[in-house]
């Protein structure tokens, strides 16, 4: 266990607030080397601190997921002011998207099928976090593609409420629906029983 380096800025902060502040600033790349070492020492010293980091990481993942589905509230009227990052990203990595989605779907579907039906002992159960991992990615890709290609939308499609998540994100592919449904079904590990 390493000794905890002293704070070098605001000594008035209570420990929990200091930890929260370091974590949130870290996620924006705002910590210098000394602050990163301070954060590392706090995390090393306390399981509760690592649980706090895990909560913030889950929060970050959830924010990304909500943003990908357009559920954080678009900045109305500010579109022209914001850097066209989605368009840039679409251009930079467009060649990877179709292959990534198709192959990720194939891998996940094959794994789910293997776990459910083939039950080969050498393949471990796909955990919920893995499904969420890929589901997050799918939602992001859908949102990015929708933003990059608005002309592809059906002009006669009915308008939807802004707070309807499925409508904002589009219909998930069958393999993802099956995987999420299975995730909630309380499956046992294939090597159990």
């Amino acid at each position, binding site marked *: 266990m*390493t000794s905890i380096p002293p704070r070098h800025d605001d000594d008035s902060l209570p420990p929990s607030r200091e930890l*929260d*502040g370091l974590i*949130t*600033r*870290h*996620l*924006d*790349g*705002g910590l210098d*080397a000394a602050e*990163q070492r301070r954060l*590392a*020492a706090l*995390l*090393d010293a306390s*399981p509760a601190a690592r649980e706090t*980091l*895990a909560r*913030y*990481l*889950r*929060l*970050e*993942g*959830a*924010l*990304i997921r*909500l943003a*990908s589905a357009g*559920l*954080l*509230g*678009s*900045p109305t009227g*500010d579109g022209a*002011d*914001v*850097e066209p*990052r*989605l368009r840039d990203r679409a251009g930079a*990595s467009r060649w*990877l998207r179709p*292959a*990534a989605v198709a*192959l*990720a779907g194939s*891998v996940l579907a094959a*794994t789910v099928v293997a776990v459910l039906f083939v039950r080969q002992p*050498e*393949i*471990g159960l796909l*955990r919920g*976090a*893995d499904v*969420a991992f890929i589901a*997050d*990615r799918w939602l992001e890709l859908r*949102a990015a593609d929708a933003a990059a290609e608005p002309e592809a939308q059906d002009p006669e499609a009915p308008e939807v409420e802004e707070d309807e998540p499925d409508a904002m994100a589009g219909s998930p592919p069958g393999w993802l629906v099956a995987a999420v449904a299975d*995730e909630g079904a309380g499956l046992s590990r294939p090597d159990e029983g």
Partner: protein
Amino acid sequence: MAYLMAMVRDLDAAEEVFQNAAVVVMQHAGSPDAEPIRDFRAWAKEIVRRQALHYLRAKGRAARVAALEPELLVQIDRAFDDDATDPAHRQRELDALRDCATRLPDVQRRMVAMRYEGRASFDAIGAAVGRTAAAVQRSLSRTRRMLHDCVQSKLARVTGVAP
């Protein structure tokens, strides 16, 4: 993605690394000589980790973020590995976050949306809301804390356990 964000601290970079890692996973899955995978989560995480470290080595100097201190990477790994939160709880957190986000003051909600939906830089957000980039970064940091506390408070009310 959150694990990647903790390592590379940039949404676009995290996406790029994720895509590279996905290609590696797919190449393995498509290989007839591929070894069986016993723990998909651990295996995929290691691929993601290596890709992220490769990214940081290759592009870290040109990136806006500081290099990642090795001891912090170790602690991020520990936190990720120890986190056994079940999917149902993650869903409750997501639902609570969605509600908490709607309760943010308008300017904070706009900044969060611009950052996460529009992938806008601090400079761009600052230009849109009339603040400096540093002020935007501080505000987003505070907003994360507010959302975290709000989510924990909501979950505590549901479960009856103090946050």
